[in-house]
């Protein structure tokens, strides 16, 4: 490890690391990465070039270089991270050092908005998460400086009504009127980034900072207030990103991912912070943003061409980070071990759906790679984002070319070549597995996650388990990611869909069959080819082929609820000692889970039932709607829709037809009375049932979505 420049001064108050530090750190890091990449490439060259390079060997060498660069990048990030975690003196660039003990006690006198952009999410989860954050902030005594915004883009009418109902109930329970706000956009222009921009345009001037959350985010009040204080102390920071720890998973995949994140994440974060410095990335949530420069400089222009490669920027966060840096403000990572949480996808299929979106977003950054004015590190961040998916195509090509080379072998006489082959194999295995081993040893010796020896031993076993699972999943992910990249290039975009965050049933075998069937077929064909090529090659490539053939089984196993929890595997500290915010959240969610449902037909459209039948929900919805001008043009059309809704029920209307009705105040008010006035024979069976059942279904129109428990006592949370 290179020696730090002897500056001896604390980091400057503005939060941009001194150039001397960042230059020295980057020189060290990229020298090591470059050296490792060069060494690997050189060994491969010796191995391939004994009889001169054929076209396929040149191609293999070309695809090998970025793959090996990526491998080295991860390797050195992790190792430097472990070193930083264990160094005897504190990192001078650690932002926590900018706060003194007095700073933590000082009252916060700047206004901050906590915003939660949502799109057709599980309403109970979103609002209970917000409640946990609200109460946690209240505990800090600094609640007065914070306002909360639920920014909805939901286009599912039932979700929309549920969101309004839950907002009112949450405000009522927390006495949060005038503090917790709800905003629904009529048109979800530019998706999430547009949602946040809309907030900035309407209310951005009222606040100095905004804490951006995802629908599944939970953050502690202590961390949020600390982030505001760090931003106050470091006026040069535009975006401060925390490390959101994945929690709350119930499936094998989710628990393995959250375990891996808990064990390896801190070192990777420290390593990233080491070489990214003031040009870190923004991940779109669990971060705090300085609003003035964000409004001034971070509006996103559309990209050239149409979607999926052009058009609206999907992965807005990287671009916003680059724009913020371009405006002269630092984007920093804040090393956090607790207080910032999120949830992950429960199944492999859900993970792939998310990756498909991310892939398209990252591939779009191709346009920005060569744009003028970026900080070189921002450009590198774009490149790494693209490479994270493009590397799957490269890996796939590498394996295809390797198959070709194995099928057309050349005589190897030179011992030097065999040695190079062995060294390359050894080096590659080291690059892949050494960081894991080092991080595991770090845990075993320091007990950073767990103090009891038994738990450390279980961590050792879990680490072996996660290595097996990720090794088996990697080839499957490679094929899918390669497919996503090719689809994006061919112009097949993705739709904006709500993410599933919990499994709502057992393993869906049909979904698994249609998703992974083609992968199994690829695996079988490739195995046949490898078998025909040679037994040695079959053995060499067998880890890949076994994964592909077992894709369906892997998909089923990792997506199941058998997650090793019973045996103490894949444990994370938050499972053993739950943070107060998570305890609050889980206790409330458990209360809701046991609540009796209404008739299944009504449950599906309960939002609609409420907005049209319940006088209070109807009143709430109309109160929150903005009155439209010049509606007379569509009045007849809305009346025709209303007639159809009464006589045929909601299933007779399309999604957009329902939406256009509940956007209109007069139609919503009118329908309330028309439904109650309609004679029995004029009503669709759905409404007939709804009118009879509604008053029996719920005791209060607003209470069914949120927990009614009193907040947990302080002793329980401590």
């Amino acid at each position: 490890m290179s020696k730090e420049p002897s500056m001896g001064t604390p980091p400057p108050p503005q939060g941009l690391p001194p150039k001397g530090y960042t230059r020295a750190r980057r020189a060290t890091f990229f020298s090591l990465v470059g050296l490792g990449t060069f060494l690997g490439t050189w060994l491969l060259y010796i191995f391939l070039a004994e009889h001169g390079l054929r076209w396929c060997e040149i191609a293999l060498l070309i695809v090998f270089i970025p793959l090996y660069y990526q491998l080295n990048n991860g390797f050195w990030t992790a190792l430097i991270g472990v070193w930083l975690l264990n160094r005897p003196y504190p990192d001078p660039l650690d932002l926590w050092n900018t706060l003194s003990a007095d700073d933590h006690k000082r009252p916060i006198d700047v206004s901050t908005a906590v915003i939660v952009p949502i799109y057709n999410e599980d309403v109970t989860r979103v609002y209970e998460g917000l409640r946990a954050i609200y109460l946690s902030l209240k505990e800090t005594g600094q609640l007065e400086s914070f306002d909360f915004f639920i920014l909805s883009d939901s286009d599912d009418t039932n979700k929309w009504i549920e969101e309004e109902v839950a907002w009112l109930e949450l405000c009522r329970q927390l006495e949060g009127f005038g503090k917790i706000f709800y905003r629904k956009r009529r048109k979800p222009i530019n998706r999430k980034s547009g949602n946040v921009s809309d907030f900035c345009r309407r209310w951005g001037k009222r606040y100095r900072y905004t804490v951006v959350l995802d629908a599944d985010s939970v953050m502690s009040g202590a961390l949020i207030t600390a982030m505001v204080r760090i931003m106050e102390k470091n006026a040069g920071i535009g975006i401060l990103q925390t490390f959101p720890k994945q929690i709350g998973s119930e499936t094998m995949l989710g628990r393995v991912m959250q375990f891996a994140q808990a064990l390896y994440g801190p070192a990777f974060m420290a390593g990233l912070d080491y070489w990214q410095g003031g040009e870190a990335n923004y991940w779109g949530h669990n971060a705090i943003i300085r609003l003035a420069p964000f409004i001034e400089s971070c509006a996103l222009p559309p990209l050239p061409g149409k979607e999926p490669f052009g058009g609206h920027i999907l992965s807005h966060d990287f671009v916003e980070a680059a724009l913020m840096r371009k405006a002269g403000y630092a984007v920093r990572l804040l090393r956090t071990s607790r207080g910032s949480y999120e949830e992950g996808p429960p199944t492999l299929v859900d993970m792939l759906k998310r990756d498909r979106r991310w892939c398209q977003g990252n591939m779009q950054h191709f346009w920005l790679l060569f744009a003028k004015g970026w900080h070189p590190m921002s450009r590198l961040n774009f490149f790494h984002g693209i490479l994270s998916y493009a590397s799957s195509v490269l890996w796939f090509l590498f394996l295809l070319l390797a198959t070709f080379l194995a099928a057309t072998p050349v005589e190897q006489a030179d011992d030097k070549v065999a040695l190079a082959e062995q060294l390359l194999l050894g080096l590659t295995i080291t690059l892949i597995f050494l960081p894991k081993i080092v991080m595991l040893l770090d845990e075993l010796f320091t007990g950073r996650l767990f103090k009891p020896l038994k738990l450390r031993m279980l961590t050792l076993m879990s680490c072996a388990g996660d290595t097996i699972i990720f090794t088996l999943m990697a080839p499957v992910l490679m094929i899918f990611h390669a497919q996503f990249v090719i689809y994006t290039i061919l112009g097949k975009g993705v739709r904006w869909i709500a993410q599933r965050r919990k499994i709502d049933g057992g393993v869906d075998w049909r979904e698994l069959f249609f998703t992974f069937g083609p992968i199994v077929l690829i695996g079988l064909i490739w195995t046949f080819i490898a078998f025909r090529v040679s037994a040695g090659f079959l053995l060499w490539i067998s880890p890949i082929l076994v994964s592909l053939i077992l894709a369906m089984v892997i998909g089923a196993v990792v997506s199941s609820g058998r997650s090793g929890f019973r045996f103490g595997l894949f444990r994370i500290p938050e499972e053993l000692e739950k943070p107060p915010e998570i305890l609050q959240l889980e206790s409330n969610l458990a209360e809701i889970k046991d609540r009796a449902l209404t008739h299944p037909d009504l449950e599906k459209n309960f939002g609609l039932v409420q907005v049209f039948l319940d006088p209070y929900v109807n009143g709430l919805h109309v109160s929150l709607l903005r009155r439209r001008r010049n509606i007379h043009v569509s009045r007849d059309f809305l009346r025709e829709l209303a007639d159809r809704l009464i006589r045929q029920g909601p299933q007779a209307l399309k999604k957009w037809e329902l939406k256009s009705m509940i956007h209109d105040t007069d139609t919503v008010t009118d329908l309330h009375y028309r439904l109650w006035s309609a004679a029995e024979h004029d009503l669709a069976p759905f409404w007939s049932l709804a009118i009879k059942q509604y008053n029996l279904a719920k005791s209060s129109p607003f209470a069914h979505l949120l927990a009614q428990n009193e907040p947990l006592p302080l002793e329980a949370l401590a």
Partner: protein
Amino acid sequence: MEAVNIQFAPGTGTEEEWNEAYARLADYFRSYRLHNRLRRTQLILETLRRAAEAHSKDASKTPTAHAIEQAKLKLHEWLGEIYSDLNLTDSQIAASGRLGFHLCDGPNRWPQFFLDRGNLPPDMTSAMRSAVRTSGPSMQVSKMTPRDIDLGRITEVAEGTFDTFERSPLFRYAALILFVSGVLSYFYWLLR
């Protein structure tokens, strides 16, 4: 509270129709979460009596429709009285008023005064008026205008290529077919 004449003998409409109207009104007032049964019954009978008068003048509507319309009128009159000086439109009064009654816990605190225009307790009126809510703070509009990003020469060339791909699906799929045939030919060559 208005005295209720329990005798109810509408001159028009069938018994079955008035029973249906009664049941619907009962459900409607229950949806206001009025747990005070006495007050609910009073309201139903009062409203039915007004509906019977209306039905005798206009029999083209069903008794149920008349009953709900009378309930709506009663509500508008009642809320109009409470929010008379708040400068709200009719639909705002209807929506905010209903919501206000719920938010101040009216169904539990003042069930006997619900829709009773002549008897408005000041604490109820004041609680309902203060419960008119907005969902967001007042706006302070900012301009957030995207600035063009100079994407550079390489991107221009790439943009041209992708434009060609986008404009011509044939060209796009020809490239894909070429790639797939190349791979298949390679396999064929391998296994020949």
